[in-house]
């Protein structure tokens, strides 16, 4: 890519071809079928539906007039397989291979939409045909997931058509590196990987750090066991990450980037790899991008199943091909990162925000959100809730809105008990705090954390002692063993919880758990150990009576724990 004009040319010509996805009927094409290809829909056999669609199109001789695109997760996974048919933006759900022929012959060829495949809002007899009118999308705001209803993740032209790489062009041709950093700082963007550190500050430190070359790293390890937001972005919109990283490269003076993805995400790796190739072919990576003299390229690094590698110092060691053990900070990666050089490391979702900030400006970006938490947040909503899947909401949306308005409430008329955020580093928030706005500080004040975006809803049948034990089991499994507070302390906490859950708890166990927790938090080497006691502390804080009941009455009201005789 030599210039903004060249980019504009691709954009305009592709936009013309994609007008159909904006609702404008096309002369040459009858429809674009966007099929969700996320893991949820794949498990509900969306690929069989795609096969059936292709057959039906061939049978009717219109295969050349209809495009089928496999997108990343569209959000409402429990309704899968889901699809959107353009130009009329009809949303279909729970598709079966046998529906394919009906859709092709009735909807696409004759314009008769299929009512029985449409979404119906709870309590409503009338279906909602159009995707934009569906209640559970109405409360959402798509910034990070801006492209996921519209683009083919394997097509760089599609990404460009939706204003892709405009921000990179602007950053390279119209902005000085300091202006880029200033803009990111002004946007108020905070890291989406969990800790919520100011992204602009992080870039400032790295830009100022002595030592070359510098590096840009994307953390796609997604360790929270019950969340897949980053995966959705990697699979659904890989170019947004590449663009964000290249912009940072310019800002801090780096020419090389790494994207660290877990081996468990083969489709994400495949799509990223393809996106990198396409970006190189189009001169959006490589030498002299936009004739600005700026060079940048990215390599993929594969994580091989160690939760601790999501921790930044461990991840950087793992990139070097070694055992991913954390090391003490300081030095922070901004000063000593990959290969001991200054490094910016951000989360996938953080990266996907960057192009929007640069393209629209910090002010527009920060008009969404709360005073101290700007923009939106993507959550993976799951557990005992009606609508499960991926959602994106403005910061400051309340938990109640998420659970009841977007999530559709708790199935089978059960009572809500708590929502767990932040996975093994986070905590449980009980019903009395449902009106809490979701932002970094409010959740922190409740003893939970924003985390990377896992949000698991628990109902009256969930035993909180069992949940605490589940997370401790995970942590014991994943502790790298380098320091003893974590290696021995979490094991000890697990044993106490295990005893309590088997009816062998003793008076004083709760206090002992609290004491151990305090020591581990204060002395563990890395974030894994330092946050590991949180699920236990927060369940004790809000559900102490359940612990007491297990210990004193040898009783588990939820009937989850099995007591030994």
């Amino acid at each position, binding site marked *: 890519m030599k210039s903004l004009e060249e980019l504009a040319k691709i954009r305009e010509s592709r936009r013309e071809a994609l007008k159909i996805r904006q609702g404008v009927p096309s002369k040459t094409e009858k429809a674009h079928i966007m099929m969700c290809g996320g893991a949820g829909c794949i498990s509900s056999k969306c690929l069989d539906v795609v096969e059936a669609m292709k057959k039906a199109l061939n049978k009717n001789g219109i295969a050349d007039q209809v495009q089928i695109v496999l997108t990343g997760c569209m959000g409402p996974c*429990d309704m899968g397989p889901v699809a959107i048919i353009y130009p009329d933006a009809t949303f279909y759900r729970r598709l079966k291979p046998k529906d394919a022929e009906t859709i092709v012959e009735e909807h696409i060829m004759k314009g008769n939409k299929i009512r029985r495949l449409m979404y119906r809002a709870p309590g409503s007899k009338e279906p909602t045909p159009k995707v934009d009118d569906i209640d559970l999308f109405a409360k959402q705001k798509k910034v990070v997931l801006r492209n996921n209803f519209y683009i083919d993740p394997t097509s760089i032209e599609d990404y460009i058509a939706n204003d892709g790489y405009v921000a990179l062009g602007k950053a390279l041709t119209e902005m000085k590196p300091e202006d880029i950093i200033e803009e990111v700082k002004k946007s108020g963007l905070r890291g989406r990987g969990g800790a919520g550190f100011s992204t602009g500050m992080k870039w400032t430190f790295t830009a100022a750090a002595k030592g070359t070359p510098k590096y840009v790293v994307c953390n796609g390890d997604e360790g929270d066991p019950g969340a897949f937001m980053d995966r959705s972005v990697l699979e659904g919109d890989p170019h947004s990450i590449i663009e964000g990283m290249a912009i940072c490269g310019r800002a801090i003076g780096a020419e090389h980037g790494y994207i660290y993805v877990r081996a468990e995400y*083969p489709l994400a790796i495949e799509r990223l790899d393809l996106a990198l190739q396409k970006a190189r072919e189009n001169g959006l990576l490589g030498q002299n991008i936009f004739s600005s003299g700026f060079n940048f390229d990215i390599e993929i690094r594969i994580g091989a199943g160690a939760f601790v590698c999501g921790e930044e110092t461990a991840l950087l060691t793992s990139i070097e*091909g070694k055992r991913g053990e954390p090391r003490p900070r300081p030095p922070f990666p901004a000063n000593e990162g990959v290969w001991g050089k200054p490094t910016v490391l951000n989360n996938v979702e953080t990266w996907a925000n960057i192009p929007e900030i640069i393209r629209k400006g910090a002010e527009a970006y920060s008009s969404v959100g709360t005073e101290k938490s700007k923009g939106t947040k993507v959550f993976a909503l799951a557990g005992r809730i009606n609508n499960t899947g991926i959602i994106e909401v403005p910061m400051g949306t309340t938990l109640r809105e998420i659970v009841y308005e977007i999530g559709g409430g708790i199935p089978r008329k059960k009572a809500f008990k708590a929502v767990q955020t932040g996975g093994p580093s986070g905590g449980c928030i009980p019903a009395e705090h449902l009106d809490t706005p979701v932002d970094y500080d409010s959740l922190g004040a409740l003893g939970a954390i924003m985390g990377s975006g896992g949000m698991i809803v*628990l109902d009256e049948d969930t035993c909180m002692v069992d949940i605490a034990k589940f997370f401790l089991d995970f942590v014991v499994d994943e502790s790298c063993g380098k320091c003893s507070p974590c290696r021995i302390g979490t094991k000890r906490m697990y044993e106490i919880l295990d005893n309590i859950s088997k009816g062998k708890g003793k008076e004083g166990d709760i206090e002992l758990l609290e004491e151990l927790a305090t020591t581990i938090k204060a002395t563990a080497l890395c974030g894994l150990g330092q946050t590991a006691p949180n699920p236990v502390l927060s369940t004790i804080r809000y559900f102490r009576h359940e612990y007491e009941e297990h210990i004193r009455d040898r009783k588990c009201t939820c009937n989850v724990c099995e007591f030994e005789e």
Partner: protein
Amino acid sequence: MVECSCNTSNEELAKQLDKIIDPYRDKPSGLIQVLTKAQNLVGYLPKWAQVQVAEGLGVSLQDVYGVITFYAFFSLIPRGRHKISVCAGTACYVKGTKMVTKALRDLLDLRPGQTTPDSRFTLEIVRCIGACGLAPAMIIDGKDVHGRLEPELIPELLEQYE
């Protein structure tokens, strides 16, 4: 992804492994990528493959071993023809992972980390496979995702894996 290696001799595999190593020759930083690909090729990481990787990348055998044992993805022992990965992420746990592992134990006498005597299945536990919306879920051979699992459905579901 467990690929059958019964008809391919070690020599043939060693040749293919060399091709995998080539772009990373004498680059120790490529160790994890090479081991990942090597395991996808052979099904696990036998001693001969470790030696070949160590020599190719210019790292010690000890370092190779250290990396293999650190990361859960790698296996030092042969595995079954099909790998069942049951999700024990939070969403699945809350909705019944225990029920799924119990069903597999009753059906195949199989526990996490084990392989059936006929080498048909290996069972492992993984954390979140991105199908939380359809919890409890599992994934077979790294590609077939099965969600909304119920114990009664499992026998039939496994029939397609010979």
